[in-house]
């Protein structure tokens, strides 16, 4: 592994050798479910048995799963439909605030979370359409700027509506419609406490199971189920007529329209369905934390979700879920561990002896965005398609058709096929076509196979 002669991508032994695709995916799925059930229970024992390993806590896994839901939603907009959205946090905020309005003492409304979550998803979807409708004609950079603005506006509106006075002008009588100084959103303080989801089953835990941050294990199971639902919905959307229409628009909007796809409604559906997952995650987060405040729905959240889907493999469902767990694990657990256990003390000591304030106050956790930036830059150069890209997933999934090309045999050849993909991703497709054109027909690899 250390010698340069070995291929860059090291082939791991395949534990599923000989299994067909369906069987293998079933085994992996059951494994993941079992792990999700068992881990929160044994986490404490693992931590005390192997304290030198930075185990992620249950509450960290809840954050991971929440961001996996967010990433799956954004993946519909960016990965499937190819619409760059930098204001995705807005729908997260809308979902969370809808929950807060309808299940807290703030307005004195206490609707069950199980109903509220449906309303929150609907509200986010509605705002997805409101954002989508005026921006339909925009693409790329322009769309990114408008969505970025939308994300900031939503956050600032939620912050500023903590103190509203809306009155008719004096010549119309000056009647006060809202206020004076009405507190609609809690302003900077936010809304607190929000009713957590509950299931009225009495047991050793009391009269009902409460899914709040006081009860992380139960909450983790809830968010895991929500993630499972989201994942299933995304799989089905991807493999449907609508999923194909999204991808067709991503690949070539004009050609998609020429195939009879209504690009307007299809893009609006991407915005609203993508937004609804964000609302879903927001409804959970608000109720689980039992408190929300506007500043937590900042631009950095949008960026983090974008980073997750690019690292994981844009368009790849499995990729973005793994990406969410990886990024938030690093963000919440690994950096803290590395900082506290390894880096902080010596660097702070160095800062104290040299008098450099920057080093004296060093804490690795504060450098998380710098680190993600570096990882992202390296990824863009070395592996721009992400860690678990769609194409390799496809090559595996469609074992039958691709078998002739990728040769289902040794994993070394698979690794080679991946290498080729990387190169093709960077090269201009035009160049490829020209080559194909000039090659005499008999020599074409396609004909030989």
């Amino acid at each position, binding site marked *: 592994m250390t010698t340069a002669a070995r291929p860059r991508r090291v082939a791991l032994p395949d534990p599923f050798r000989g299994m067909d695709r369906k069987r293998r995916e079933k085994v992996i799925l059951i494994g993941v479910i079992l792990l999700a059930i068992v881990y929160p229970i044994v986490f404490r024992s693992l931590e005390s048995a192997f304290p030198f390993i930075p185990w992620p806590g249950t509450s960290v896994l809840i954050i991971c799963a929440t961001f996996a839901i967010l990433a799956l939603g954004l993946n519909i907009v960016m990965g499937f439909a190819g619409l760059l959205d930098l204001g995705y946090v807005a729908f997260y905020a809308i979902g969370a605030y809808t929950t807060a309005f309808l299940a807290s003492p703030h307005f004195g409304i206490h609707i069950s979370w199980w109903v509220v979550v449906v309303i929150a998803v609907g509200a986010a979807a509605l705002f997805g359409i409101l954002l989508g409708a005026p921006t339909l004609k925009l693409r790329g950079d322009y769309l990114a700027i408008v969505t970025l603005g939308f994300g900031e506006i939503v956050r600032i509106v939620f912050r500023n509506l903590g103190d509203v006075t809306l009155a008719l002008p004096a010549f119309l009588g000056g009647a006060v419609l809202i206020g004076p100084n009405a507190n609609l959103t809690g302003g900077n303080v936010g809304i607190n406490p929000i009713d957590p989801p509950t299931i009225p089953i009495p047991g050793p835990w009391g009269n009902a199971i409460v899914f709040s941050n006081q009860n992380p294990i139960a909450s983790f199971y809830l968010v895991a189920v929500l993630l499972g639902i989201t994942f299933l919905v995304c799989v089905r*959307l991807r493999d*449907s007529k609508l999923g194909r229409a999204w*991808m*067709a628009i991503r690949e070539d909007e004009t050609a998609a329209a*020429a195939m009879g796809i209504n690009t307007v409604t299809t893009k609006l559906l991407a915005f609203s369905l993508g937004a609804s997952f964000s609302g879903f995650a927001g409804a959970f987060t608000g109720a689980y934390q039992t408190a929300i405040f506007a500043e937590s729905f900042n631009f950095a959240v949008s960026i983090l979700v974008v980073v997750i889907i690019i690292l994981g493999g844009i368009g790849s469902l499995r990729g973005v879920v793994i990406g969410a767990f990886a990024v938030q694990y690093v963000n919440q657990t690994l950096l803290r561990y590395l900082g506290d256990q390894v880096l902080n003390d010596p660097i702070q000591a160095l800062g104290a002896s040299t008098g450099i304030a920057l080093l004296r106050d060093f804490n690795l956790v504060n450098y998380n965005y710098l680190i993600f930036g570096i990882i992202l830059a390296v990824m863009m150069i070395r592996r721009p398609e992400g860690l678990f890209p769609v194409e390799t997933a496809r090559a595996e999934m469609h074992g039958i058709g691709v078998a002739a090309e990728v040769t289902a045999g040794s994993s070394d050849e698979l690794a080679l096929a991946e290498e080729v993909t990387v190169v093709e991703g960077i090269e201009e497709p035009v160049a490829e076509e020209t080559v194909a054109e000039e090659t005499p027909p008999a020599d074409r690899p396609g004909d030989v196979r």
Partner: protein
Amino acid sequence: MTAAAQPADGDLLVATSCTKRFGGLVAVSDIDFSIPRGSIVSLIGPNGAGKTTFFNMITGLYIPTEGRIMFDGAELTGRKPHEVVRLGVARTFQNIRLFGNMSAEDNVLVGLHHRLKGRWFEAILRPPSIIREEAEALAKARELLDLTGLKGRYTTLARNLPYGDQRRLEIARALPTQPKLLLLDEPTAGMNPEETRRLTDFVRRLRDELGLTILLIEHDMKVVMGISDRVTVLDHGEKIAEGSPAEVRADNQVIEAYLGRGAAGGG
């Protein structure tokens, strides 16, 4: 074969005094044009003559500045591209515009898009009717790939296909929209003589076996002369000749447009 394809029941498409201006540039100028049902009509002319602009007006990518286009009794002028497709006009593109990162069968399935009834919530709930519809659609897509000579290429990504196969896939993708009129924009561009011959035969079969009417933009004169029932020549946005391949070949103005003034005078 050609005799059987003579127009029996009128024109499928009629364009009346169509003009398209881009600012000061007149790309297409006052063109009257019709396509008889069941015929193969070619549109030829030097580069920049306005052929593709004319295509784009028919398919709704451009709205004509003046004039109107009627198709099978329906007004096409000003319709959105997806509406034009639903009325029965399908097209391919001059520079191949496949969905590169989708498999061949998915490309064809996109062509089937508006024939499928499933709505977005049905995609999520996936009732038996949708499972059946999807299975039928996939079978249909593979059938079309077989028909166009792409058997065994079902799951290959479109961008990984050889050039000739990409051209064929573009046609395979246009067919499931069940068009009455198929517009082919330089279908043999970049093909070798053998591929060109196969494609020409295929286009003829589309007309004879599927009953399609075909409008062709083509630079390869061998193809144009061999396959067309009628040829229309554009130059600088204007129609300069129209008629059977033999008539057009003998037309002085056409020779002039292609070879320059001296050539016409000398010939």
